[in-house]
């Protein structure tokens, strides 16, 4: 037991998030069974698997978004830099400022582009004055590769942008709170190929600053953007390895079937 603790602290030196024995129940439905995953810092980790395999569920455990689902029950340990995020002392609000999230459907607030990005910094008191806030907004929009497209119309509603722009606005909004981890739940599923390419490029850029976890249905996308890939099937983590290895020499027959298109 003591040994395990030592082991864990060692892991946290290069692991941003360490998940051990995570189980999720939705009422009587056992959605996630005993998942162990290590999310490395400054790397993109992709979760792949057929629909309903629990990959989004697991992603939502990482910033406790499952708390909003009344029937969800999470057990096991998830450590963010060695601290248990399910510790009763943890305020999920504080956690979510550190672990940002981008959703499947672009969901900008029905406010101006500026206010969309400035909202997080405002509520977390990150800017002392207007100039600082302006700077955060600009850096975030630049970080999301959107600045050049919207710099002249920051006061226009964010909902008026195209789908791809909206999704990048949501990424800018998530980036603005300076998170340590960015969770992305199928961020490109509602986008056309061009917008998808832009967002993928962006994900690659973001890797230099935080660790990114992305859930995707597209195996090509996982192969393109991620360094680590986890394959989920029916609530189990089947295989977790370097992306190259998953796609070239999968260890588990189920992984092989999935990436070759036979299941899912």
């Amino acid at each position: 037991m003591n040994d395990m603790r030592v082991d864990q602290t060692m892991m946290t030196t290069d692991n941003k998030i360490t998940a051990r024995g995570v189980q999720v129940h939705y009422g009587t439905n056992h959605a996630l069974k005993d998942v162990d995953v290590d999310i490395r810092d400054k790397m993109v980790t992709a979760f792949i698997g057929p629909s309903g395999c629990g990959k989004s569920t697991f992603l939502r455990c990482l910033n406790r978004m499952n708390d909003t689902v009344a029937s969800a029950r999470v057990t096991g340990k998830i450590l963010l830099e060695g601290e248990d995020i399910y510790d009763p002392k943890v305020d999920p609000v504080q956690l979510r400022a550190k672990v940002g999230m981008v959703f499947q459907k672009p969901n900008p607030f029905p406010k101006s582009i500026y206010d969309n990005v400035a909202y997080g910094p405002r509520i977390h008191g990150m800017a002392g004055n207007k100039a600082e806030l302006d700077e955060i907004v600009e850096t975030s929009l630049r970080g999301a590769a959107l600045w050049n497209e919207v710099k002249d119309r920051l006061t226009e509603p964010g909902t008026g942008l195209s789908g791809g722009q909206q999704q990048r606005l949501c990424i800018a909004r998530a980036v603005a709170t300076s998170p340590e981890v960015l969770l992305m739940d199928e961020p490109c599923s509602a986008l056309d190929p061009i917008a998808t390419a832009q967002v993928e490029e962006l994900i690659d850029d973001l890797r230099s600053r935080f660790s990114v976890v992305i859930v995707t249905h597209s195996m090509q996308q996982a192969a393109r953007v991620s360094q680590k890939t986890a394959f989920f099937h029916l609530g189990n983590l089947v295989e977790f390895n370097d992306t190259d290895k998953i796609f070239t020499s999968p260890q588990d027959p189920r992984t092989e079937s999935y990436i070759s298109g036979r299941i899912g």
Partner: protein
Amino acid sequence: MTDAIATGIPAAGPRRSILIEDALTRKRNRSERRFKMYGLGAITISLLVLFVMLFTIFRDGYTAFFQASLTFPVTLDAEALDENGNRDPAELAGVTTIGYGNLLRAALIQHLNAEGIDLGGVSEADVGALISRDGPAQLRDQVLADPDLIGQTIELQTLATSRLDGYLKGRVTMETALLDSNISPEQLQLADRLSEAGIMTTAFNPGFLTLPDASDQRPEAAGLGVAIIGSLYMMFLVLIMTLPIGVAASIYLEEFAPKNWFTDIIEVNISNLAAVPSIVFGILGLALFINFAGMPASSTLVGALVLTLMTLPTIIIATRASLRAVPPSIRDAALGVGASKMQTVFHHVLPLAMPGILTGTILGLATALGETAPLLLIGMVAFVNSYPAPPLDGGFLDPATALPVQVYSWASRSDPAFLERSSGAIIVLLAFLVVMNAVAIILRRRFERRW
């Protein structure tokens, strides 16, 4: 395997042209046309009924806004009104409306003689009866308010009695006058001569909107003043009570409350309360606010409390529906950047739900505005002919009536002159409702945002 598939596909029949309607399509089209006809018929019938209703109300009611009045010079004789000549208010008040009535009658007869109008055998008392019984009272108030008028000759415009007004509006005819102890055909003939001479005229009557209610004997002087003020007071109180309570309760139930059997019971009961007949709330108000808490009966405060109880469930249901209509993605977005539950609700959910909440509230208020039954039970049907004080002077505790109650009480009076006033009050009530609905639409348009 192949056999099974082959038998699953229906055998191809003879080729049918799509230019010819087959029997099944014809049948379907016929039933569709029939359904459209039913719908159109239903709408036509409801529009027709609505039109008939509005037409009747306006036909019967618009005359309430116009009133016949008599205009003639009156010399406010100092000897009659102020015997001692000292303008002492107490002594001036000693002259009753009977004294002023005599003065008015004498002045009218004198004016008729001066104009050379034949009285046509109408006795002096009957000439005096052409003047509204409210005329002397109004003149007395005028003099008491301004004693300097005494000794002067003023051009007075005073209301004609409701029978004369009815004669001009066609409600009273020579035939009905024969059967009516209040008016005679001779008086009506005199009235014709008065009209010709320009002494009796019909004009817009602002008093209908400003004057308080009047007794059965003088419908011409009855107005909606107290009822309008009472309704406005109640709307104000209902608004400031229901909006915070209703919105707070809805937000708590919708966003914060755990989903368990207890909140389920609350939910079911709110829906049930919305279906409780309004008169039950009146009984509750009578027992709770008047008998138990000892609040003054007939007061707008009690009326507003009862209407608040009645409106709350409706507003809570409307508010919850509009909160639920805010897409969950907005909540996720806010929570995702680390907003707390309360920040999520107040920064994002509530502004988006606002148009729905306001519409629901205003429609709830409109229902409350038109509500009669519970107000009858708490005494707002009483005859109130003094205005409630301004709100800051305790006006909410003063007795008042409300528009729908005034409609009810006028409609139940025997004098046919009150029928037109009742319809006129309905027009005013409808105008209020139209304004409120218009405000609801404008607010919805203004706040509506796409997401």
